[in-house]
């Protein structure tokens, strides 16, 4: 391992960390504004121009609040849980290619050959933050929230995994960079208008890809505990769920974890279905550093659009009931994803030939 690799990797890590954390704080601001606009309100618009400094004010508020630890909690796990909630969401982004190349350096922190498996493995850990937090709080509502979270995770992890299998049928390996590479050559999975768009089999293949995308996105909604699947939080039923007993920065860490998971989830969706950093007509970073920067900008624009969709859905749909959620997961999406795999497998020989 040469020092060049170590230094560039460290730079990338620091850059992505700063970017993701600032995106988190502005996602919170965006969430408040979007929700307000959808409900015909204005939202925070006082701090700075159009309320753009609101995240800074929020940060100071959260930092200066009393960090209260209830007497009857299991202190060690109570302190550990918020960290467990944030850590997986931020680590997952390491394998997602957020740009092509910049000065010849690939814009991905770790281009591991088990890419998507790494994403699933680490993202599933985020449930521990919630379950441990709910258990350690030693209180009814957080406990129920934690239990709900684990059950929800079980019902959705399956369809999450199965939904992406068709993609890797086509790509041939699990590296996320090769997923992007494949989409540049053959068109985005969700809309193959790049490449051989006249080939009817390509369009036929896009149909199961849309199903795949819908199942995957709904599973990601459940994975990140966003509405309509925010049962672990469920303010109305569970008084805030797993974070009821938390205050100050520990509560903020849960919040951060949720939004970081949302960003990571959006990044994964964009990479898998929307061609990652690719946009038709824009060459990759080997044609000049300016294109490398544009590629990164394209990626994060797509992520921002996905985040907007997350918020849009959140402020449109009501929460699912507990049994409805389990039924959807086990009896509906699991089967759809499974059938979809066979569908793609049936189309694939024809599509590959042409």
């Amino acid at each position, binding site marked *: 391992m040469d020092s060049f690799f170590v230094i560039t990797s460290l730079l990338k890590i620091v850059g992505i960390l700063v970017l993701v954390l600032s995106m988190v704080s502005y996602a919170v601001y965006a969430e408040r504004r*979007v929700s307000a*606009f*959808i*409900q*015909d*309100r204005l939202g925070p618009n006082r701090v700075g121009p159009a309320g753009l400094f609101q995240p800074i004010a929020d940060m100071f508020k959260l930092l200066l609040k009393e960090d209260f630890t209830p007497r009857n909690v299991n202190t060690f796990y109570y302190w550990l849980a918020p960290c467990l909630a944030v850590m997986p969401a931020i680590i997952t982004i390491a394998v997602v290619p957020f740009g092509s190349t910049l000065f010849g350096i690939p814009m991905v922190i770790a281009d591991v050959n088990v890419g998507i498996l790494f994403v699933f493995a680490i993202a599933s850990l985020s449930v521990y933050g919630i379950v441990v937090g709910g258990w350690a709080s030693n209180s009814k509502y957080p406990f129920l929230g934690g239990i709900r979270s684990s059950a929800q995770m079980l019902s959705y992890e399956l369809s999450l995994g199965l939904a992406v299998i068709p993609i890797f049928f086509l790509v041939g390996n699990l590296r996320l960079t090769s997923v992007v590479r494949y989409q540049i050559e053959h068109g985005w999975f969700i809309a193959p208008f790049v490449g051989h768009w006249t080939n009817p089999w390509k369009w036929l293949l896009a149909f199961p890809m849309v199903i795949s995308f819908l199942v995957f996105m709904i599973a990601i909604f459940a994975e990140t505990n966003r509405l309509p699947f925010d049962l672990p939080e469920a303010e109305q039923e569970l008084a805030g769920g797993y974070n009821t007993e938390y205050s100050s920065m520990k509560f903020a860490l849960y919040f951060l974890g949720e939004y970081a998971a949302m960003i990571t989830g959006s990044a994964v969706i964009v990479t898998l279905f929307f061609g990652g950093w690719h946009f038709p007509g824009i060459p990759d970073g080997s044609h000049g550093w300016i294109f490398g920067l544009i590629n990164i900008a394209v990626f994060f624009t797509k992520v921002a659009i996905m985040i907007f969709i997350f918020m*849009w*859905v959140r*402020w*449109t749909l009501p929460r699912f009931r507990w049994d409805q959620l389990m039924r959807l997961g086990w009896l509906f999406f699991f089967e759809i994803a499974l059938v979809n795999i066979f569908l793609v497998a049936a189309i694939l020989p024809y599509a590959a030939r042409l």
Partner: protein
Amino acid sequence: MATITVPRPKLNWRERLYLPAIVAGLAITWKHFKNMLLGRTKVTMQYPEQKWDSHLPEHYRGAPALVRDEDGRVRCVACQLCEFICPPRAIKIIPGEIPSTDRFAKVEKYPEAFDIDMIRCIFCGMCEEVCPEQAIFLRKDYAITGFTRAEMVHHKEKLLEIGGVMHGVVLKWNEKK
């Protein structure tokens, strides 16, 4: 006990698919979002910059205030009826005697001090109703604020400043009558 069986509506396949309903819902929220973004929806009033002042109805009950008459005399004759009627006992009056050399000597009394504790005041308007001299009125000031309790007590000067001059209505203390 009678049992009522509520019939569940039979859903057709399109309704059971949920997706059309979800898309319709998304369309509605998008419409609201877009209209708000383009500034077509105007619901919120930006309070400290925009105020209700010009929209307040005639009968609005704001802060109570003392008024002067055309001659610049404080109308209040310190009868203390408002002090007695005030449900939260917000009003405190110390009456004083008008010297016999004064132009309005026949009025006899005037309020030496007239304090209304605005923390206590409930804006009920009973002082206005009970006043035989029409000397106290509820004006349209509604944002009464202060940093201390002492600051929230309106003294006579403050009350007169809010009240201003009221013309007509009661003319019985005119010295020529």
